[in-house]
């Protein structure tokens, strides 16, 4: 319990900053929509003329940008990127920082097993990503509702946030697993965000080029694509099962490798 509280306190400030970032992202993003929606249909016409690859890069795809929910669908991918970067860095740092800051020699000579330390740290991280998720949900609902003209958005929002939460979990545990496995405690965070960026770029590449569609299983971002989740699409069972397996493997890797690790001080 003491390690859990310590970690909550240690991550308090960064959590607040990330939350402010996400709220600003949603507020400014939807503020742009207010400007665009007044020009009405012409926006969709304009975007239709854009090459498909450019549309893919901007994440527009098949969304109807004249509706608030369609517009939010585009914005969502950027929120996912922010939330997953937060999760990956949090996961990597919360595990590796004891060695990086050389406090391992303090913590691990205390009468506490490594498994218990990891559990406390993971629970603290879990609370952090849940808070990020809820903040995203609430500010999204509030901001989108302002422009939605009575459109029912709650169901879509909740589905999107469930998808985002699973992505957060996957990248959190990618971070913790890399930190537990990698020999150098300083590189864990950059390695995790590197993997994140590669999988994200892959997901865009798949949008641009349908011939590599089979690679979609390699990038978690494709598991929870906004355009598939929204408008009654819901979660795909295959992807959810795949996610659960991925999370279970990463989670056990975190425990197994950290327990066997020679702590570098």
């Amino acid at each position: 319990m003491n390690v859990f509280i310590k970690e909550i306190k240690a991550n308090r400030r960064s959590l607040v900053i990330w939350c402010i970032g996400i709220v600003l992202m949603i507020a400014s993003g939807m503020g742009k929509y207010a400007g665009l929606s007044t020009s009405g249909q012409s926006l969709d016409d304009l975007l239709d003329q854009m090459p498909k690859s450019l549309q893919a890069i901007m994440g527009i795809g098949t969304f109807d940008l004249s509706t608030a929910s369609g517009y939010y669908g585009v914005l969502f991918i950027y929120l996912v990127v922010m939330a997953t970067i937060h999760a990956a860095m949090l996961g990597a740092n919360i595990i590796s920082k004891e060695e990086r800051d050389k406090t391992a020699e303090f913590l691990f000579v205390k009468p506490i097993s490594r498994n218990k330390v990891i559990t406390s740290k993971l629970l603290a991280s879990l609370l952090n990503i849940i808070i990020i998720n809820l903040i995203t949900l609430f500010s999204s609902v509030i901001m989108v509702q302002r422009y939605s003209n009575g459109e029912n958005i709650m169901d879509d929002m909740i589905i999107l946030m469930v998808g985002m939460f699973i992505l957060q979990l996957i990248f959190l545990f990618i971070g913790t697993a890399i930190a537990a496995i990698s020999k150098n405690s300083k590189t864990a965070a950059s390695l995790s965000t590197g993997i994140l960026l590669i999988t994200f770029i892959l997901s865009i590449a798949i949008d641009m080029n349908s011939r590599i569609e089979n690679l979609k299983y390699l990038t978690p971002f494709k598991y929870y694509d906004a355009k598939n989740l929204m408008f009654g699409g819901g979660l795909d069972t295959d992807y959810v099962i795949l996610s659960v397996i991925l999370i279970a493997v990463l989670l056990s890797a975190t425990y197994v490798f950290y327990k066997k690790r020679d702590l570098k001080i």
Partner: protein
Amino acid sequence: MNVIEIKNLTKYYGKARGIIDINFDVEEGEIFGFIGPNGAGKSTTIRTLLGLIYPTRGSAEIFGKDCIKYGPEIKKEIGYLPSEIFYYSKMKVIDLLKYSASFYKKDCGKKIHELAEIMDLDIHKRIDDLSLGNKKKVGIVQGLLHEPKLIILDEPTSGLDPLMQQKFFDLLKAENEKGATILFSSHILSEVQKLCNRVAIIKEGRIVKVEKISTLKENNYKKFKIETMLKIDKDYFNMKGVSDLEVKNNMVSFLFRGNINSIMKKISGIEIVNLWAEEPNLEEIFMHYYEKEA
């Protein structure tokens, strides 16, 4: 009863040597010195005992229990002071000490204030703002606040001024009298001599010697360096008790053990320009032990 029993403890970092077949026991209630130059394997041994790293071969028992298997349990009664102190830098001293205490299921509040007072430590400062010596003091308080039965110290005096060193040694002696066993690692022979009952000497990953301090003191080596007027016969000083004899031009150096008068008489037999007689440093003692073993 032995508090620490180390059996053939070996640690390789990949192919690099850490420690090789370390064997020694620390008895209950003694202050046991562990000396060797930097990189000899002192910290590796200690970190293995504490379960921070895992041995390649061999095992160690603390309080009769395997130090890896029963790690969390035996650490309840271990206090550890690392050679370099790193703490969560944004914390205040008192918060760190309370955090440290929270791992032990007993009330350490009184002991914290008592120790902080003895070590003259301001517990309301932030860790970042402390000097090296003051960080060391935090380490000392932190290592002793739960009144451990075994205190493990890894080069504990670096950064402490002589006055604080003395207070710290007094503190250790008091804890020892109350029943605590102490493992004291150092590369400074004099402080080990001052405090310890027995020492283990480690060199290049191996234990060279485990010896009582009193025996070491009997082996009272002196290091001589003499500058002579004229070149002397290189076997002039080759007599009983002299070792590591070296003659270079007008400079003669050697280690001497035995009756000091006999060597002084020998020196008086030649014309000298200058003379240095000093305690040999640790390295030279090692060299000596090494030669004897070989």
